[in-house]
Each structure stands twice: as structure tokens, then as C-alpha cells.
């Protein structure tokens, strides 16, 4: 984690009750274990392993979830896709991503290991 980070991340409660931090400065992606179904209000996401059903209540949030993998960090994705006009909007989307991370709808991208031959 880069030093001097202003935003400490969002704390969420995991199912076990112990708080986990959502780090928006790292790269995330939509989980392969979910079904994501677009709806007029946004989308429905269903996690086939945990059987949790999540409503994404804005189409912009859906675009964000889809586009996470194309950006180096969740923060960058929010800037590029949501284009938040103020910090409230920015924070609301970080908070939404934190909830989605806790529900397993999005996952951190583990960097590929490259072998130098």
C-alpha cells in the first residue's frame, strides 16, 4: 500500500463479524462465481457458492463493476467510469464496492507471476 494514502479504505463487517478493510487503491474485478443480470434499476447479482443475492441499484454502479478490471485501482475506475462530481458521490461508490466485496461479487485481482526464462 502506497505511503501517505489519504483514504484509509472502508471498513466492512465480514460474515464472521471481524472487520475487514476494503482497499480501493488496489485492482479489483467482478467475481467469476456470480451471475450478473442487467435490470432497469441496475442489476441483480447472485453468488452461486454463497447463494447471496445482491441488488445493484444504479446502472452506473453496474458499469463500474464491469469496468473494474480495466483499471489499476478501484479509485481509478470510479474516476473514469462514475466521474463523481463531489466527494459524497465518490465515497458512496467506494462504500458500494466495499459491500460488493464483502458479498463476494467483486474480488481483488491477484497479479500474474511472470517467469523470466
Amino acid at each position, binding site marked *: 500500500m502506497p505511503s501517505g494514502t489519504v483514504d484509509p479504505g472502508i471498513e466492512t463487517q465480514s460474515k464472521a463479524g471481524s472487520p475487514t478493510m476494503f482497499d480501493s487503491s488496489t485492482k479489483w474485478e467482478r467475481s467469476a462465481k456470480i*451471475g450478473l*443480470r442487467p*435490470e*432497469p*434499476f441496475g442489476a*441483480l447479482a*447472485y453468488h*452461486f457458492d454463497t*447463494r447471496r*443475492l445482491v*441488488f445493484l*441499484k*444504479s*446502472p452506473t454502479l453496474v458499469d463500474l463493476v464491469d469496468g473494474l478490471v480495466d483499471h489499476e485501482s478501484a479509485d481509478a475506475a470510479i474516476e473514469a467510469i462514475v466521474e463523481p462530481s463531489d466527494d459524497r458521490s465518490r465515497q458512496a461508490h467506494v462504500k458500494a464496492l466495499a459491500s460488493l466485496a464483502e458479498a463476494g461479487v467483486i474480488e481483488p485481482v491477484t497479479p500474474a507471476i511472470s517467469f523470466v526464462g
Partner: protein
Amino acid sequence: MTAIHTSLTLTPKPVRVPPLVEQLKGGLDAPICLTWELTYACNLACVHCLSSSGRRDPKELTTTEALAVVDELADLQVFYVNLGGGEPMIRKDFLDIVDHAVGRKVGVKFSTNGYYIDQQAAERFAATDLLDIQISLDGFDAATNDAVRGPGSWEAARRAMDNLAAANFGEFKISIVATRHNVAQLDDYKKMADDYGAQLRVTRLRPSGRGVDSYQDLRLTHPQQQDIFRWIMDHPDVLTGDSFFHLNALGTDTGETLPGLSMCGAGRIVCLIDPIGDVYACPFVIHDEFMAGNVRDTGGFATVWRESDLFRELRQPGAAGACASCNAYDACGGGCMAAKFFTGIPLDGPDPDCALGHADEAVAAANAAGIVPQPSQDHSRPVRLGAKPS
């Protein structure tokens, strides 16, 4: 279907998006999940069977037709299908249907009396992905249960649970329909489920199917309704299928509502496909009045879901009717249309089990006048149980 409004004026004003529930009431392009009764055949003859099952219907969907329905549901991205019946495991192609569904990433839960879950079946299920099992039980002890479900049914259910536990199936569900005679056993059920590592599910008895006849004997009393409301609030890890939202009136003083969407999903976000392919608004209204079409019709299930007159009607905003002046209406929504229909009272009036007693007179009057509708499909076997618990 509600879309998020965008203002076309030069000075856009903030527009409040309707709460999610209001948007769901307008219906979705596809169900979120649905119930699919695979057969009317059953080895049991429960007094309250909501589908009046017993004998197989000769017009039952063939294996080819059933697999085509699975494909349709997968294409619609229905997340989850709840298989039932009758007893779904009686169908010889049961595993084929299950395997095809999970293979196409449609989650499966099936509801069973457990009779056919021997060791081998339990192991097969434990090895199947995306599969959930729900064992039906209606009494903590054999006497209470068998009075409703028949001799030997309790033992068969317990044996199935033991087999699933031994096969390390994981967390299966034990599902109880709350009746006057078993509602005092809720703590015992919870302990049973905890001991098995299973999830407890407690649902409302509706006067559907054979339940039409047994409803007056089995329905909860008003004090029992208060007890169960409190019990469910105190046990948030117990599932209810959102079937008790008609009791939310009991929470208006304290501002409490039961967990769940607290809305009728019939024809809006869920529905029923019956063994002969008829599509009904939900499993509790197997009656011509609530039949939307058939999967064998041109355009299949998707067309029935999206274009049937019945579902279009259900997706219109409803009037509060006789409940308009009640301050609990926002919380209870007037209750369950199946419960109203099969007790012979108007659909725009209070639920027969209105927690505030607003329907008591109307129910008594309908009974006295003998105007209670009968289900449109009755596959009961000629000999029916009618034993009351001792």
C-alpha cells in the same frame, strides 16, 4: 417497468427513485427464481398439500420438454429453481433434470419428503454442485408430524437427514409449515436443525390445495400469530420464504418488520410451473383464476412470463381497497392473495389471518355461506388422511 427518470429540462431537478420494492412490484423481465413442480405423483398424502398431489397426471411434461424448460430458464438467467411436486424424486429423470440445470448454471433447491434419500442418493447429492435440499417436516415428534403427513413420514424424513449428514452434504434445509399444533415446538425444531448443522425454515400455512379443507383446523390462533412474529424476529437466521409479512402489522408500534422483501412476488419476481407445464402466479394459487398460460404454448415460458394477461394485471399497482384506512397497510400490504382467494374473501380486502382481526367476520361469513373456492387441479389419491393429532 419503472426506469430511472432523466429530466429533459434545462434545469434538471432531483428525482427520487422509487424504493426497490416498488420497482419489483412492476415485474422483471425474468423471474429471480421460481417453483417448478415436477410431478403430481406422491408417495404421501399430507392433509394440507398445497398441490393436492398423489397421482401422476398423464399430461406430465416429458423429459425432452423438461430439459427444454431448463434451457429456457438458463437463457433467461433465472438464478435458482425450486423443484417440488408431489415428490420430485419419484420422476425417473429427476437426476437428469437436476444435472442439466446445474450444468447450465441454474441453481437447484428441491423440496422432498426424504423418503427416497438413501445413502447412495445422499452421496450423489453431496457430490453435486449448486444443489440445495429442503426436507419437509411438520412436527418435532412423530405423533405431531404423522398426524398431518401420514404414518412413517417422520421416520423417513429423519433417515434422510441422517443420510445427508453422514454423506457430508453440508447445510441442508429443514422446512416446517407452521400449524396450530406444531407452533409450540419452534425451539425444538431450531435445536434439531442446529444439531444437524442444517438451516431451519418456517413457513406460513396457506389454505391452498388440500389445505382448503384442513385450514380451519390448522391455522394459527391470534395469540399464536403474536408468538411466531416475536419468535421470527428473535431468530434472524431462520428462513421464512418471506411468508409471514401479513403479520407485519404486529410490528407497527415498535417499528419492526420481518426480514425479507415483505411483498407478494407472484407473477412479478417469482411464479410456478406445474407438472403439466401450466404457469401459475405462485404455488399457492393453483386455480384457473391465476393461470397465466402453458410452457407448451408458442413462445414457451418466456412469452407467458412477459406477455400473459394475468401477469400484466398483477404488475399494475393495486388499490388498497378495504385496507386503505388501516395504518398497518404499508407494512402488511393487505397480506396474501392466495389466502384471501381460498377463504372466499375479496382480494382487495384484509388477509384472512389479518393480525388485527379485520377479516374474522368475513371469513366466518364465507364459511357459513359455503362459497370457498376449490383448487382447479386435484390429483389426490382416493383415500385421504383426515386424522387429527391425539
